[in-house]
């Protein structure tokens, strides 16, 4: 596993796009803190950028990378290596390189400008989001042999989680505003990893008052340590479930 992982990481780093991604995130982070005079405001700006850019890059880059490594996978398969190991190495390679990119790009300015607790939370959330969308990339690329279709699934998933889901939630809230739906909103937010992360960070930043009454319910639920643990557990599920499904399909895939 370690030997294959080494080759995967070397291959990803040699592909300069990851370096470009690191620089891009660093630019966003430094300018978010540089332009706002208040570190909290800077953090909020950065949160919104991260929740938009990191999922998009992670899911697209990983999907294309998985399709492009089909030759690599084929070569390894004729060697005495378990299929699990090949798939795990690809996942680990992508996870390590994209997480390190995020750490270097956003981690350094965060630790310099923001309060340590908030900075740490943001870094953890960023890495979770990275891993979740890599996992979703594995899921969409095992669904189809056709590269264009696989990338299409990935883009649709990103569109859904980053844009459509919020729209749907707003629509629901608007339509059902006469009913006490606040508790339901807590449940629904668990259906999108991006929203979960956003709520988590907003509560951490103490700006939940902006969310009105729903915010108070969120605070009541997610603000407790049990809520925090539960949130991270849900985020973890978002990593594990799509990946495990893809692994099971890969084990019986014909090459």
């Amino acid at each position, binding site marked *: 596993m370690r030997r294959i992982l080494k080759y995967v990481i070397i291959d990803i780093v040699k592909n300069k796009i990851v370096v470009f991604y690191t620089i891009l995130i660093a630019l966003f982070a430094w300018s978010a803190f540089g332009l706002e005079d208040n570190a909290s405001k800077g953090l909020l700006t950065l949160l919104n950028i991260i929740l938009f850019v990191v999922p998009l890059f992670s899911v697209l880059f990983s999907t294309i990378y998985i399709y492009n490594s089909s030759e690599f996978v084929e*070569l390894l398969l004729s060697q*005495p290596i378990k299929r699990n190991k090949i798939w795990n190495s690809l996942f680990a390679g992508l996870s390590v390189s994209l997480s390190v990119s995020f750490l270097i790009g956003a981690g350094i300015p965060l630790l310099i400008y923001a309060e340590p607790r908030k900075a740490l939370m943001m870094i953890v959330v960023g890495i979770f989001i990275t891993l979740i969308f890599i996992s979703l990339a594995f899921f969409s690329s095992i669904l189809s042999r056709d590269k264009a279709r696989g990338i299409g699934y990935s883009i649709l998933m990103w569109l859904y989680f980053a844009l459509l889901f919020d729209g749907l939630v707003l629509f629901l809230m608007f339509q059902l505003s006469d009913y006490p739906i606040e508790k339901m909103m807590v449940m629904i937010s668990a259906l999108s990893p991006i929203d979960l992360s956003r709520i988590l960070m907003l509560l951490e930043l103490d700006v939940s008052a902006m969310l009105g009454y729903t915010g108070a319910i969120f605070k009541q639920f997610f603000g407790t340590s049990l809520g925090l643990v539960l949130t991270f557990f849900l985020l973890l599920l978002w990593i594990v479930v799509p990946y495990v499904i893809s692994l099971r399909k890969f084990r019986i895939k014909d090459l």
Partner: protein
Amino acid sequence: MIEVKSLSKRFGKFLVLNELNLHLRSGECIALIGPNGCGKTTLIKSILGMVVPTGGDILFQKKSILKDIEYRKKIGYMPQIGRYPENMTIGQIFDMVKSIRNVDYQLDEDLYLQFEIEKILHKPMNTLSGGTTQKVSAALAFLFNPEVLILDEPTAGLDPLSSEILKDKVLKEKAKGKLILITSHLLSELDDMVSEIIFMQEGEILFHQEVGVLTKETGMDRISKAIVHILKKR
């Protein structure tokens, strides 16, 4: 050495392999022939574990391969169309495969040297011609001195000289008592190499016969003629 037991493979609606039974012994050089799309490559890929069979089993030295991967240490595989990571150089491919296999015995570098691969180690895989890729595949297949060699259309893209080098190597390995499985459409090439013939058609085995018996029964001196004779008779 390798036993195939009522092996079936279905791709969607298409039944590619239909209840195949085979027994491949070591020391034989076996030609697997048949029209395009008769399931030769699927059979080979099933033996290699790259295709997961729908039904049946394959035994390698009496052990099922469906749950095991160690047997692949004993197989050298040369694909019909070698697909390699495009941005790696030949040298990196060799280094990677060697480091993954991590064997402590003497490597068999005959083909590596005869094909003069050390001269092109720096070339990226995506710049290679089909023939050069075939040479890389062949050198990799023989490198770890495997007990079983599976060659899928080995000479299809090779120039005559390299083709001869490869054939000599096959004969040399056969003499060492290895099992060699070759698919080919060039029947004339097989004459001096193979000892058994398996003829497949539409996912089934039409016959599995020793070359000596085959030529005697048909009264023909060449494999190609003998096969044409049999096919005409049916």
